[in-house]
């Protein structure tokens, strides 16, 4: 038990509910002493954007429109029951009512607990995202090989 236990998560999804699962697992593990790495790729990168609403983030006109459509954490849709964007608002209200941490609180907790946040280099290229588009807590920009090195010897999840 004295050896550091480790959890690494590949956060591929940008949906509110799946990101809630990512950050619930990450904070829970970090709180009990795990080293936690999250590798955000593709839709998951939305969770790291500095601008949490919709903005023209991207390199060219196409990726800027993608950026506008994808948005950031505060406009992440639910994978079911999205109801044109009403779904996440309903779930946020239910979470507050039941004293369950909301996604934003979980992300803040992850930062406080020292969860390591990494961005996928390849997905950033495809989506025209730059390091400056992300929150400063992003520890590094990585590829698969580096992530495999980081996650070796621990548990890995794909969400």
């Amino acid at each position, binding site marked *: 038990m004295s050896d550091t236990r480790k959890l690494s998560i590949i956060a591929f999804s940008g949906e509110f509910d799946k990101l809630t699962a990512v950050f619930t697992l990450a*904070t829970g593990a970090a*709180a*009990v002493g795990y080293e936690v790495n999250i590798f955000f790729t593709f839709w998951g990168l939305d969770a790291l954007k500095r601008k949490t609403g919709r903005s023209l983030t991207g390199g060219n006109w196409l990726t800027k429109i993608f950026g506008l459509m994808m948005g950031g954490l505060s406009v992440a849709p639910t994978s079911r029951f999205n109801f044109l964007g009403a779904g996440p608002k309903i779930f946020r209200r239910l979470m507050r009512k039941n004293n369950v941490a909301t996604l934003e609180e979980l992300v803040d*907790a992850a930062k406080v607990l020292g969860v390591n946040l990494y961005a996928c280099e390849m997905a950033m290229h495809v989506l025209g995202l730059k390091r400056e588009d992300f929150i400063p807590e992003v520890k590094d920009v990585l590829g698969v090989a580096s992530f495999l090195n980081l996650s070796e010897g621990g548990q890995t999840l794909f969400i």
Partner: protein
Amino acid sequence: MTFVKTKIELSKLSEGDVLEVLLAEGEPLDNVPRNAKEQGYNVLGVEHVEGTTYRVLIQK
């Protein structure tokens, strides 16, 4: 999640300070004192408050 919140509050305290946590019985009451001990904090006491609520004192 309860321990996540507890851990964050503990991180704001200085060595020797005591944190009072109100917990519901069941998973939170099972996990929080156990995890706190595992992480090297002193659990000074667990007492029943009312109904399903318990008070746990944790020293950093």
